[in-house]
């Protein structure tokens, strides 16, 4: 149809609402400004959120965001300036309260403002890269209030004043402090650090410097440490209550430095109350406190350790070189054990069993135990004493404990082979005289030694035990085969393998005829079953039980050594015998004979013989009679058993010589072992390796090693290198 108008569909562009009112922006802003005023004056209850939000939204939408933002800044700044005046006007203690109150108000107002200006926060601000509203509020607070000239210094001094008051014992308002500090933290960690923390740490350092000086003049070590601990805990508590957690490490550092680190040396060496006195008096609590406090300070613990080590070495050295204690080996070792127990307890209770302290203890003991060259012998004697009688009636666990402690001392010895020699001797005597208290204890100790030093160390000792057992079986076999001997004297023979037992020189001794016949029978029986062996009688180690009837008819059973038995049996055939006659008949060497006669004639209570003249010593012209007037309360009388004693000087030298002799082949074996694997090695390294290998047995002397090398070169096990005199080569 031609009349129809064409309708054009126009698609209009998306238009914003046209700003009709030129002063629109100004008007809208005025509304918002008024609202902000009301908010700050706590009059917000009448306002409509929706209206304000809408207005802010519109301003931003119509590109007036800039105006809104700057207006906000100006208004807030103005308000804050007023607030700062009112805070400055506050008097004395009310200052902090006023500050806190105004801070809370500001916070609340800020949140409200942020809520209404939320749209601007989300659109205008990210686009123009300005600070968001909330952060802006905090920054303005910081700049206008906290950093305002009058308030800044006053705030700091008030806070520090309060802390100082609390340190001197007053009670302060902790809630107020906490809120104020939290305010500083909210404003930014740099504000907290610069405006409070740094000066706080400085003032604290000053305070503690003065206080520590005061204390150290008037207190003794233990008290000072108590006070330091109290102060430290106080500071930690203070942090927990109202300061930033991150400050804890810093303030504790300050306290530690001022109160502990600066006075460490003086405390430790304080007279009558320092570390050494604490150690001597077993003051566990004080020591524990010192340990905990010094642990916080660099070098604290090492100082304690060093002082303890030097003190321990001093006391140990005195103990060990003291002539008095050397007289009684059991006493000597017991004192060492007591000393070790004491320090073990201290380390356990006060130093929380720290490894470094244990090591210090061990090294000190190792140092002074080896200062006395008789330590190995004494330790062996101590064990001997315990195994003979000391452990009677002691329970199994206690036995183990004592043996373990002895093992600890054993570990400290450098010359373990000396110990081995003495132990072997003492063990032999114990076994042969049947004097050990508990077989189990003996074996247990052997096992411990084996764990410590290896099989080689204890193989011979175990051999000794095996010999004893075998001998029992042999005796049973002997009497089973010879039933006719059941009525005669009972013979008990211990067959000892030469290698296992300590070497003894064979001494002559004429046995009485009855005994001699019996011994021969045994010898033929034994050699009948074991061919190719040689038996030799060790008469100096035997014992005998003989029944004696004296003048008045009193009967006694005498327990004597073999020598003594020989002598006494002579009196069966004669009433009077001179020394010379006895000597001829028995063929016992002079010194042993004299000793044996002395124990029978001169000792009160055991004088089964009478001597003329009645002197203490045995002279070659003395005459002996049976003492008919001999009396004793007991039926069984023990005379002169062979007891392990501390060696006399010549014996000691002899043993030491033997030890040295034994060491030579061991050194040589070590050298050969090393050279065989290395083929070529220089002198210093050889010495080092040999010392290391032999460490578990003894401390090798370099000169001795050198001598052994020379000897090996002579015997063509090694040769010197033709070019380098210091180099050795192994010859296959």
């Amino acid at each position, binding site marked *: 149809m031609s009349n129809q108008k064409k309708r054009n569909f126009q698609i209009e562009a998306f238009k914003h609402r046209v700003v009709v009112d030129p002063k629109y922006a100004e008007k809208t802003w005025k509304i918002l400004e008024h609202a902000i005023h009301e908010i700050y004056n706590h009059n917000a*209850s009448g306002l*409509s*959120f929706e209206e304000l*939000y809408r207005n802010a939204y519109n301003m931003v939408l119509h590109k007036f965001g800039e105006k809104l933002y700057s207006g906000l800044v100006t208004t807030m700044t103005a308000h804050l300036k007023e607030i700062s005046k009112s805070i400055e006007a506050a008097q004395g203690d009310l200052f902090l309260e006023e500050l806190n109150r105004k801070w809370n108000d500001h916070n609340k107002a800020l949140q409200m403002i942020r809520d209404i200006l*939320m749209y601007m926060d989300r659109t205008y601000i990210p686009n123009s890269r300005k600070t968001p509203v909330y952060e802006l509020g905090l920054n303005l607070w910081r700049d206008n209030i906290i950093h305002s000239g009058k308030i800044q210094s006053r705030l700091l001094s008030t806070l520090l004043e309060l802390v100082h008051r609390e340190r001197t014992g007053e009670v302060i308002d902790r809630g107020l402090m906490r809120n104020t500090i939290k305010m500083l933290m909210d404003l930014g960690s740099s504000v907290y650090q610069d405006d409070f923390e740094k000066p706080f740490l400085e003032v604290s350092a000053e305070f503690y410097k003065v206080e520590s000086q005061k204390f150290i003049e008037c207190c003794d070590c233990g008290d000072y440490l108590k006070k330091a601990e109290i102060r430290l805990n106080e500071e930690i508590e203070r942090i927990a209550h109202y300061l930033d957690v991150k400050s804890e490490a810093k303030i504790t550092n300050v306290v530690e430095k001022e109160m502990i680190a600066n006075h460490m040396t003086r405390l430790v060496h304080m007279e009558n109350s320092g570390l050494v006195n604490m150690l001597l008096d077993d003051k566990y609590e004080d020591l524990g406190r010192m340990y905990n406090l010094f642990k916080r300070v660099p070098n604290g613990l090492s100082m304690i350790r060093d002082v303890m080590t030097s003190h321990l070495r001093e006391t140990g050295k005195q103990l060990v070189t003291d002539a008095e204690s050397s007289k009684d080996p059991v006493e000597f070792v017991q004192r060492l054990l007591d000393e070790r127990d004491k320090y073990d307890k201290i380390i356990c209770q006060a130093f929380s069993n720290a490894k470094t302290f244990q090591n210090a203890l061990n090294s000190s003991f190792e140092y002074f135990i080896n200062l006395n060259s008789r330590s190995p012998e004494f330790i062996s004697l101590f064990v001997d004493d315990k195994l003979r009688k000391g452990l009677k009636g002691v329970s199994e666990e206690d036995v183990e404990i004592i043996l373990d402690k002895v093992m600890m001392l054993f570990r400290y010895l450098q010359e373990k082979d000396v110990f081995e020699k003495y132990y072997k001797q003492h063990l032999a005597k114990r076994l042969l005289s049947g004097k050990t208290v508990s077989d189990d204890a003996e074996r247990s100790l052997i096992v411990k030694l084996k764990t410590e030093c290896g099989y080689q160390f204890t193989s011979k000792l175990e051999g000794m035990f095996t010999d004893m057992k075998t001998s029992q079986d042999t005796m049973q076999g002997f009497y089973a085969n010879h039933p006719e001997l059941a009525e005669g004297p009972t013979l008990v023979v211990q067959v000892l393998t030469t290698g296992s037992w300590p070497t003894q020189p064979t001494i002559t001794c004429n046995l009485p005829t009855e005994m001699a016949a019996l011994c021969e029978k045994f010898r033929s029986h034994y050699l009948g079953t074991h061919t190719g062996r040689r038996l030799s009688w060790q008469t100096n180690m035997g014992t005998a039980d003989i029944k004696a009837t004296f003048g008045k008819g009193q009967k006694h059973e005498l327990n004597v050594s073999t020598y003594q038995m020989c002598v006494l049996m002579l009196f069966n055939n004669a009433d009077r015998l001179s020394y010379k006659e006895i000597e001829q008949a028995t063929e016992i060497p002079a010194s042993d004979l004299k000793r044996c006669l002395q124990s029978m004639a001169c000792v009160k209570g055991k004088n089964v013989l009478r001597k003329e003249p009645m002197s203490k010593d045995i002279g070659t012209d003395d005459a002996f009679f049976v003492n008919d007037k001999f009396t004793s309360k007991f039926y069984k009388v023990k005379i002169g058993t062979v007891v392990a004693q501390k060696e006399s000087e010549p014996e000691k030298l002899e043993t030491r010589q033997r030890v040295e002799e034994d060491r030579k082949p061991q050194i040589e074996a070590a050298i050969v072992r090393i050279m065989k694997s290395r083929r070529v090695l220089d002198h210093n390294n050889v010495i080092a390796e040999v010392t290391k290998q032999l460490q578990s047995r003894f401390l090798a002397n370099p000169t001795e090693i050198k001598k052994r090398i020379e000897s090996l070169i002579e015997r063509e096990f090694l040769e010197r290198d033709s070019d380098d005199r210091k180099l050795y080569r192994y010859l296959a």
Partner: protein
Amino acid sequence: MKKEDTVKLISAEGMEFVIDKEAAMVSQTIRNMLTSPGGFAEAEHGEVTFPEISAVILEKICQYFYWSLQYSRGKETDELFSFIIRMVFLSGRSTYVVRVLALCCIA
């Protein structure tokens, strides 16, 4: 419905929509209004007036709130868009769509 759990949304014409607070809180703006410290009038009386939103739009907005609560756990964006398109055609005043979106802070 208890009084404390509800808010009243009032349109430009004066029509009142009483809905659950939880539904209203879907909108961040309304949430700020009601929870802002300082006692604005809205929070005190539990009423929010929108002088520039018509009743029709406000109705759709309330429907959106409830729909959002129901379906926001399994986000199905096709549904969302179709809902908005439906709403645009309904209103004819596109500026209000923008307002609503701003109100609900979907962006």
